[in-house]
């Protein structure tokens, strides 16, 4: 681990939080949205600075900060960054900045509270990505709930937004229970292994837990708990319906963040797989099957959707399944493909959701039956939608192509049946995306309001231009991101193959990422 004096990571967490508090005192000429814009822009710049400070050659945690909180219980605020998390941070910062800009004129009531909650959500999401303490992880995880609940319940645009907020809140709360049990069991195991006073030998930090051998029997209890907690919120089938409800009812900013912030898949990568490596290897087939079912199920259900927003929600679920397939392959290609896919989908799905929001703001609906023929009236909006659809479909020249390629090759090395499932999912993705594109954008304009609809405004154009450039850049030069994740991915895989973590007598370590053809 490397330590530095300047605390950039805690600043990444605190900056939006302080800005959230300041919004309560904001007055014209510095209204809350200006403050939010400044804070999110500063956050993005800081995250980019952190990205440049990150040393890709070092596979260990970097820029580590540690502040004691409850020393008697060994709980503290510990932040750090590795190659797996390093790209999620700037992408999340970009995402929040985009949502602030995209909804510049859309928040008419209680703007101070709205932007305050949005900034709090950003702070907590950063905490989830940056913390190296399991209790802090749960803390940040749980504290994403109040902003999500209130933003959906108070500013929702659907008729059932309060119900959706309740469902979202209860689901995410319930998901935290198995995670809490799992983390406490791991901390207690650390105490058992060190054999001292319980409170003195408990450990909740990720580095300490990763260095503690976990008996295989305990791993088989902890891994399902972690998987259950993260599967509910990822979401994987059959826990996915909260996402479609929330996406339909929540304001566009929240729907965009729900689709874009892949906190749970990150949790699977960082906690479920790393803390219980033997069980993760043993039950990788469960992960693969869950991912495959989620991908195919969500893709097939997406074909029946009549609303752009709901279709995007199912697309998000399907892509989560695809990423899980990559992770279950347990090889570097699969893992790097999954990370790239998550980043790619964060950009593409978020932009598609924002464009859907622009359409909704102009025409009052995102139902295909109310739209049709938008391409004639809004060529630039259509062009961007087509571009981000191409990114989602994994077309060459976009960031989706290397992501899907790596993922499929990784799956092919591990389990050819998974690769076939992934490829079938890609065909289905085209089968639900393009007919929706046809219904919404092509053909003659169905309603007079459509012919009068305004094309993208300069602000909206600016929101979409940067992710578009990013998606094309990563498509042409995927090495820029793969180099950042390379060492971390190898270390991640190496941990799964380390015999020290297979301490049960007579237990034979399963094969990792081997071709079984």
């Amino acid at each position, binding site marked *: 681990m490397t330590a530095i004096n300047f605390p950039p990571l805690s600043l990444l967490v605190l900056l939006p939080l302080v800005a959230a508090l300041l919004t309560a005192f904001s007055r014209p000429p510095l209204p809350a949205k200006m403050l939010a814009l400044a804070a999110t822009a500063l956050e993005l710049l800081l995250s980019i600075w952190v990205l440049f400070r990150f040393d890709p050659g070092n596979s260990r945690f970097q820029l580590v900060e540690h502040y004691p909180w409850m020393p008697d219980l060994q709980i503290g605020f510990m932040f750090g960054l590795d190659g797996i998390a390093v790209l999620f941070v700037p992408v999340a910062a970009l995402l929040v900045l985009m949502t602030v800009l995209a909804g510049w004129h859309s928040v008419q009531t209680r703007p101070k509270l709205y932007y305050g909650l949005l900034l709090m959500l950003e702070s907590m999401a950063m905490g989830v990505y940056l913390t190296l303490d399991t209790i802090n992880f749960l803390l940040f995880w749980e504290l994403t709930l109040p902003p999500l609940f209130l933003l959906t319940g108070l500013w929702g645009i659907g008729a059932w937004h309060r119900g959706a907020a309740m469902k979202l809140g209860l689901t995410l709360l319930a998901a935290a229970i198995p995670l809490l049990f799992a983390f406490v069991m791991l901390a207690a195991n650390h105490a058992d292994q060190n054999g001292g006073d319980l409170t003195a030998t408990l450990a909740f930090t990720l580095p300490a837990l990763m260095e503690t051998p976990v008996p295989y029997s305990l791993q088989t209890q902890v891994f399902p708990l972690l998987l259950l907690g993260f599967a509910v919120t990822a979401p994987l089938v059959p826990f996915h319906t909260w996402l479609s409800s929330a996406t339909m009812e929540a304001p566009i900013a929240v729907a965009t963040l729900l689709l874009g912030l892949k906190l749970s898949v990150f949790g699977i990568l960082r906690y479920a797989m790393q803390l219980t490596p033997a069980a993760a290897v043993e039950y990788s087939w469960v992960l693969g099957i869950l991912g495959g079912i989620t991908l195919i199920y969500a893709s097939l259900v997406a074909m029946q959707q009549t609303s752009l927003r709901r279709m995007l929600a199912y697309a998000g679920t399907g892509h989560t399944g695809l990423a899980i397939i990559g992770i279950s392959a347990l090889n570097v290609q699969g893992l790097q493909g999954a990370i790239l896919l998550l980043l790619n989908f964060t950009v593409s799905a978020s932009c598609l959701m924002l464009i859907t929001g622009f359409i909704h703001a102009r025409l009052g609906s995102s139902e295909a039956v109310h739209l049709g023929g938008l391409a004639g009236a809004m060529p630039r909006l259509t062009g961007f939608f087509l571009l981000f659809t191409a990114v989602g479909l994994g077309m060459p020249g976009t960031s989706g192509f290397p992501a899907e390629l790596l993922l499929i090759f990784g799956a*092919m090395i591990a389990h050819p049946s998974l690769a076939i499932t992934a490829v079938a999912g890609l065909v289905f993705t085209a089968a639900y995306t393009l007919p929706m594109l046809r219904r919404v954008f092509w053909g003659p304009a169905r309603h007079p309001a459509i012919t009068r609809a305004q094309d993208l405004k300069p602000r909206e154009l600016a929101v979409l231009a940067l992710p578009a450039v990013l998606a094309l850049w990563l498509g042409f030069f995927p090495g820029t991101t793969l180099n950042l994740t390379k060492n971390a991915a190898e270390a991640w895989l190496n941990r799964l193959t380390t015999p020290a973590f297979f301490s049960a007598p007579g237990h034979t370590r399963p094969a990792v990422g081997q071709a079984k053809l």
Partner: protein
Amino acid sequence: MDALVILIPLLPLLAALWLTGTVLCGLPGNTPNNTLSADISKGALMLAAFLAIALAAASLLGKNTGSFSVGQWLGSDTLNIRINYQSNGLPVFLAALFAVLLAMAAQFTAGCFLPAVGKTPLHIGLCLFASAILQLVLSANAIGTLMGWQLTAFCALGLTVYSHRCLAASASGLTIFLVQRTGDAGFLLGAGLTYAWTENLNWAHLSSQLHTLSSGQVTSIGLCYLLAILAQSAQLPFSIWLPRTIDSTLPANAILAALMPHTGIYLLLLLQPVFEEALLPRILLGVVGFSTAVYGYFTGLAQTAARNALAYAIAAQLGIMCLEASLGFWQLAAWHLCAHAAVRFWQFLNLPVLQAALDETGARPHTSRPTASRRLFVACLQGFWLDLFIGWTLIRPIRRLSHDLAFFDRHIVDQLTGNPQHRLYLNPVLAQPAGTLGNSGGLPGKLTNSAAAVLQWFDKQLALRGVGKSGIDYGRKLGFIANKIERLLLGPRYLALVVFITLLVAF
């Protein structure tokens, strides 16, 4: 001279990116009367054609080394994908042919009358398609070819729906893309198997490593690529996409119908060593090729529109090329491919002239062969019910499955996990009375309600009715149980668990 090869697909790509930027950012060049986009498109494609011809000439003179590597594109563990190009042989000559034909298409587009949405989107599609097909032909590894392969399909979609107000054209575009996507699946799987078994994706490496693979492995690779070849070259049962290209405007249909399916045959020629080793894919190729030739011939004879007849004729000829390759006449298939692409492209570009001539002389009568048998004639008119067959065997089952799953999702899963609309009244205001934040629903909601009811009963019996004799008995029993639980909780794990649950609840 080898380095020239990189510019051949790059120039049209840069032109396409530039023109896309003008459209998305509203820069000059997007007005229907502006010739800037036409000039950029023409310039890029003509320069690419010139370079391709120069490269072909250098190849003939023996000035090229045979390959050129730009550098690594992607690296992950043992996967190392470089941007490699071939600078000798069939790829170079075919690239020169395609580049010249595409430059002609650009010239044609600049001169033709295209109202509605302006020419810039068409020029973008044309340049992107040119870049993709030249990348496909010149690439020395499977991933480079796959990039061109997938991008041509995406461009086909864009070029077909170019006139976006025509719903029929957009439906055709979807069909074309989805069929190509099925072929992409085969290509991806073939490339994946190649990597898994040889750890290298260069075409030359695959040919040299075939002897290390078992016959089953070669057959598997061959079958996967066969799927891609059949889909791209419009062989049965994937022939349905080729006639649909005529829904696009000229010269897009010339490009799509006359150039794109030939890339499938080109892939077949690239994979000659694989198909020579794998008997089953080769036999299948021959059978399908022969069947497509017969199908294309008879169906084409029943067409009255010149464009339709031409599309089926192309399918038939492509079937013959597959048959030639299957029988081992690889050289013949290569010559057939080049000559056929050029002739068909010329025919498509001349269709307006042909149509005018037909208008003067009247439509061609049906030939006697299909009309001799009424049933055969009906079958030919219906395209041997291929569309229906695909619909019944593939599309309809998937749609029904999708419908069933959507029903299951909405009525079972959503209800079990709690539907925000489960208090469904006609008036949404009634469903969400002011001051409430929704209602609990689904299985978790019902369980919570039941637990609340039990606790309510408990509270009512013990707390509200006072402490009687039964209350004391209940209290003793509860105390006994509580002692038991306490002993359990004294275990270190559970103690820690309770402590931290309490702490977290306090947060």
